[in-house]
């Protein structure tokens, strides 16, 4: 009984991962993070990703408030935030989010307010999608642990 549940969960996890890689939402850097997770650091991936979520949401709030400023749009500050966001996204393998940041940065370098607004909305959307999927992944991981009593390296 337990064996079947564990098998099903493993299949779910693999299917989700395959989807994320295939869609270009995640890239090989995420695999690198998984390789760094082991018995001595069994929650490494989720720990890094949670730091990423925390940082990203702060950056997104900052970007939005910068864009909402009617009088003066601080493109330079936006560029700085975007560089940070790009860096951390690339470090966890969040490819699509990073790519939107690149486009966003290009718009800000051209002082293109409308372009920036569009890019921000797209960025928020991509980020939300990524966050949901990663939460789903971690949930399956947790269920696997409960089903088998064994923590697998991802």
């Amino acid at each position, binding site marked *: 009984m337990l064996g079947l549940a564990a098998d099903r969960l493993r299949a779910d996890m693999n299917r989700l991962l395959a989807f994320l890689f295939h869609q270009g939402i995640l890239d090989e850097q995420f695999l690198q993070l998984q390789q*760094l997770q082991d018995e001595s650091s069994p929650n490494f991936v989720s720990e890094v990703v949670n730091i990423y979520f925390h940082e990203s949401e702060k950056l997104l709030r900052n970007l939005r408030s910068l864009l909402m400023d009617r009088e003066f749009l601080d493109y330079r500050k936006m560029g700085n935030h975007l560089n940070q966001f790009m860096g951390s996204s690339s470090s966890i393998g969040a490819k699509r989010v990073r790519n939107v940041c690149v486009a966003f940065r290009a718009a800000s370098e051209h002082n293109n307010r409308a372009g920036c607004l569009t890019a921000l909305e797209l960025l928020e959307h991509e980020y939300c999608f990524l966050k949901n999927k990663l939460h789903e992944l971690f949930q399956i991981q947790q269920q696997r642990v409960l089903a088998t009593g064994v923590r697998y390296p991802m």
Partner: protein
Amino acid sequence: MERLSSPVLFVFLLLVMARNGVVTWRRRTEKIDGSDPSPSDTKEVHVLAVDDSHVDRKVIERLLKISSCKVTAVDSGSRALQFLGLDEEKNSNSFYGLKVDLIITDYCMPGMTGYELLKKIKESSAFREIPVVIMSSENVLARIDRCLEEGAEDFIVKPVKLSDVKRIKDYMTRDFRVGEGERGINKRKLRDSCDLSSSPPSILSSPVSSSSSSSSSPSPTILSVSAPCSPSSLDSPSRRLKMTSSE
């Protein structure tokens, strides 16, 4: 002439070795005599990692730990200098600095950039011998050149991978076996040879650290490619080369 007895011959050979090739002995004894002989000297490598990104700090810390390094991660250049015990203004070192075998720093940081940190370290008599590695998400040739010119040991394009860390660890182990004079030769050859190459020349014997079974690049030169275990391991040594040849 009387034949030399074996013990005498043996002692003679030892003396010859000590004079010529075995510079490590000198370096090691210096360390024992002078500064505090922390166990990290010969066994575990202590790395100081500098990055303003929390995510990156967490990743680099883990990469280093998994490569059997002791790690201290700080979030700015000024904190790094504080940690080393190097007073920013006076350029002297206080008593409380801790021993570090390698410094790895991000390039783009608010306040003091990684480049400025590199300069400060290379300008300091106490710390200029510490190898400094620069990390950057931007693949800019001019930036790489500038860092290497200033004395950086290597330049890693982010995101940092295990193969990158393994490669720089090889540098560190090799550096421990090279004396003062030979390092000078390294730097000179660095400038003369291909502008991309940041690796020591072939006058050095092959790295003492044996390559592990997982992805590592045994040879320091960029042109060599490590045995690929994963597609990403191919990227690190040749990534820089690829980038510049398309310039």
